[in-house]
């Protein structure tokens, strides 16, 4: 087994590395990029130890670390991962390596600060996924905003200031009510441990209020319709690396929050209000899908596509109650939840890849407008192949990872309700429509203008970045077992937990009666 505090290393190594980069830049080192890459790669390789040493047979927290931190508030430095958080940590460390590579030549201004911001953010995001203490979680969750705020604001596009302040305030607004809810539960349970919160008995009114407070925080992060409006702005203005991290990981933190907080802490409120989430998710899938169709800006199109795909995630997660009621077994519910989680990971790869593709084009022609391109395949054949692959994956082509999650969620929603499935399945059509139409307009056709004529195909660095993403997209599309296996035990455990009401017995029965 691992005999050193692996999770702490994954959190603090990148943060320390980021601090070292800042110092190196201040001291005037000529080239700090290799150091950044070494730190990112080391963190990624270390995170693979999580996978190789992970025990898939148990739902218990693994790699736990526990030390008192703020004794006055009974706050502990408590880290640990299960099948829900472990894949997300690896996604984070993997994506950071690509982001460091993607910024290699593109970022001219203050590259040390740029790389440092991404490394520090990597550590903070790992902290979010690994925290088992609510205050620790909240600290990482909020601290994460600071580097992202700077990344968009310093290296972003023309409207970056507007976008980044909107991003910051929106997310801040969502999360402060969560803080109030966390403190409230602390006073009920006497501890800040997330696992203590899971066991905390709560009345229905309390659950509803806590659920809504969490919903504010996580819905903004996911983002769910109608609190999604910060995302297109932030994505469009962020530098490529910022967009990739936003889409691939930050949005997943919202979905993770639902799984780690909302469902297990307030199962009855989640049950009673699941219609709200399902409604918001379906609106996101259908309405935002149409919105994506009409975008003129490539990044905006992918941003809206992200919202629609994340609607699928929340749909899969919150179908569980209908499925439990309808089928009486956890099998169907597990399918929906695992589908949502696979979709999170897969969307992390695919949306990241698409933003990197747009970044490749933007670096050359400095435009994100679809109308400025056309016939790129003629001058950049290798790049075109990648972009087509990722666009197909985005529309859920079988054989790519995009298919697996969507298919699982659609199957689950059929078992829940035909109309849910009918609406959810429109993502297959709409997703294909906007992804393929994007490809048609940008990649295929005649060479549109001189700019496109002079394009050079991707270099070796860009090839490595895109090829590694293509590899995982195809790997998990053809063989999703390694991903799904690690989730099984934790998902079953979570379902067993949420199917037991926290209310006193009679009230719980009455609610179940009404639930149908």
């Amino acid at each position: 087994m691992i005999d050193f505090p692996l999770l702490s290393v994954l959190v603090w190594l990148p943060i320390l590395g980021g601090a070292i980069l800042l110092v190196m830049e201040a001291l005037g080192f000529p080239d700090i990029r290799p150091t950044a890459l070494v730190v990112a790669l080391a963190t990624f390789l270390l995170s693979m130890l999580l996978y190789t040493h992970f025990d898939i047979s148990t739902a218990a927290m693994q790699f736990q670390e526990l030390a008192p931190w703020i004794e006055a508030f009974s706050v502990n430095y408590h880290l640990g991962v299960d099948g829900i958080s472990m894949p997300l940590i690896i996604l984070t460390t993997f994506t950071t390596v690509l982001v460091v590579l993607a910024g290699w030549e593109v970022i001219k201004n203050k590259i040390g600060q740029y790389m440092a911001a991404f490394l520090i953010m990597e550590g903070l995001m790992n902290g979010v996924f690994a925290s088992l203490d609510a205050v620790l979680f909240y600290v990482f969750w909020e601290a994460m905003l600071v580097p992202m705020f700077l990344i968009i604001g310093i290296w972003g596009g023309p409207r970056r200031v507007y976008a980044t302040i909107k991003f910051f305030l929106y997310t801040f607004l969502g999360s402060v009510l969560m803080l109030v809810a966390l403190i409230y539960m602390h006073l009920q349970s006497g501890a800040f441990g997330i696992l203590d919160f899971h066991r905390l008995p709560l009345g229905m009114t309390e659950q509803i209020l806590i659920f809504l407070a969490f919903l504010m925080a996580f819905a903004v992060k996911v983002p769910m319709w109608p609190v999604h409006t910060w995302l297109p702005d932030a994505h469009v203005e962020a530098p490529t690396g910022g967009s990739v991290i936003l889409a691939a990981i930050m949005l997943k933190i919202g979905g993770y929050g639902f799984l780690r907080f909302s469902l297990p802490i307030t199962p009855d409120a989640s049950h009673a209000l699941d219609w709200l989430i399902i409604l918001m998710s379906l609106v996101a899938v259908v309405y935002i899908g149409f919105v994506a169709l009409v975008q003129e800006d490539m990044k905006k199109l992918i941003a809206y596509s992200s919202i629609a795909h994340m609607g699928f995630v929340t749909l899969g997660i919150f179908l569980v109650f209908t499925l439990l009621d309808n089928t009486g077994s956890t099998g169907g519910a597990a399918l929906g939840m695992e589908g949502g989680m696979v979709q999170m990971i897969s969307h992390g790869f695919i949306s990241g890849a698409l933003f990197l593709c747009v970044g490749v084009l933007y670096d050359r022609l400095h435009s994100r407008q679809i109308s400025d391109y056309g016939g790129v395949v003629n001058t950049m054949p290798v790049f075109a192949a990648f972009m087509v692959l990722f666009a197909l994956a985005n529309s859920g082509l079988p054989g790519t990872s995009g298919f697996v999650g969507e298919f699982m969620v659609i199957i689950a929603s059929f078992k829940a309700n035909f109309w849910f499935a009918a609406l959810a399945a429109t993502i297959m059509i709409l997703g294909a429509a906007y992804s393929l139409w994007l490809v048609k307009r940008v990649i295929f056709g005649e060479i549109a203008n001189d700019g496109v004529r002079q394009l050079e195909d991707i270099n070796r660095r860009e090839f490595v970045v895109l090829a590694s993403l293509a590899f995982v997209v195809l790997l998990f599309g053809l063989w999703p077992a390694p991903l799904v296996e690690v989730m099984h035990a934790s998902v079953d455990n979570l379902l067993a937990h949420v199917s037991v009401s926290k209310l006193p017995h009679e009230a719980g029965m009455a609610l179940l009666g009404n639930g149908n």
Partner: protein
Amino acid sequence: MNIALSEFAPLSTEIFVLTMACIILIIDVFVSDERRIISYVLSLATLLAAALISWNMLDNETAVVLNGTFVSDPMAALLKTSIFLITFGVFMYSRAYLVTRGIFRGEYYVLGLFAVLGMMVLVSAHNLLTIYLGLELLSLSLYALVAFNRDSAQASEAAMKYFVLGALASGMLLYGISMLYGATGSLDIAEITAALSASDEMGMIHIFALCFIVVGLAFKFGAVPFHMWVPDVYHGAPTPVTLFIGSAPKIAAFAMALRLLEQTLGGLAADWQDMLTILAVLSLAIGNVIAIAQTNIKRMLAYSTISHVGFLILGLIAANAEGYSAAMFYAITYALTATGGFGMIILLSRSGFEADQLDDFKGLNERSPWFALMMLILMFSMAGVPPTVGFYAKLSVLQAIIHVDMVWLAVVAVFFSIIGAFYYIRVVKLMYFDEPETEEPLHVSTDLQIVMSLNSLAVLGLGVFPGALLAVCAAVLVA
């Protein structure tokens, strides 16, 4: 009135500071302008030694001496230590500014030390007259400090406003005290408490006294609607004086509130809780909203102070040990953060140029990434974003009021802190996202560099390891 010599032991810090202030005053008369640095170094040494003395008194038993007028308890020791350390920082920040403006005179430091003495008396008061004495010593020193740059019309105006309104507030407080004296026949805190708990119901006179005392306190805190002097004085005073007013006196004001409200009028808690709730909500609302409209960073920080006072008062509203220790933690850490914030204005100023406009922070990251980072930490701490100490200050206050079932008040507080976050991150935006307006490199003296860095890193360090200070704040109230 026999006072044994041993009764003076708990006063050793006060005696030491008083003696040193007088010695420095005399020495300062005889040193030439070129060697003014002697007064400066002596003042710093005094504060450091005083901090050591009072820190050593942290574990002492509570002792009420001098016929019940003076109390030495662990809380007083902790608050005095913080006051010394923060004033130490203030003095270090001030030197460069005073030197470049040709007003590097000993009076600044002597008046500062007397203000510190006033704060100490306030912190240790166990008699309403002692409170008044401490308050006046503090206030009079501050009035003089504001007018310290006598050639500046703006500063004189600010001093006049401060004096008139401050005198009014002192009058209010004194009037309240006199009514309390009339009702209970004593000025001693313990005796008043006993008299109040003996009487079955609270008469009109008690409520009247309470009203005037709360008004006096609110003036000193700068809580809405008694906040009018804050922006004008902060703006008009020379920056080192603004720095001084904005930091350590907040700790003293907290002590005064605790001595008066909790220890004297604890029996009327239900009444003053309601009054403070109004003050707190108004301060949070008006402070945060009006701060957005400011273009002058000193005024912006003044309104920000008002909003922070609102948060601090929330801790008092809880009216239990948890709330008081949260408010104490808030007062100490806010003073630390505010020192850094105003210190940065001094750092950016240079001869003939006041960096007190928000636009002066533009592009600071280009000119000095290190100090931009330091200011970033301070601003996020004021906004309450972890991992800075400001987050834990807010967390502990919120926890205290949620504990007494005032969840709605917590929701109001966090709502306004989002509005507050906007103008703090606007400063970050100016520093990081905008181009600098001047290419002039920063010339920062070594002592300023050291104190600025230590200040900000302390804000960050206390944010990563807040446990010790939180534990001390809780312990001194239990003792």
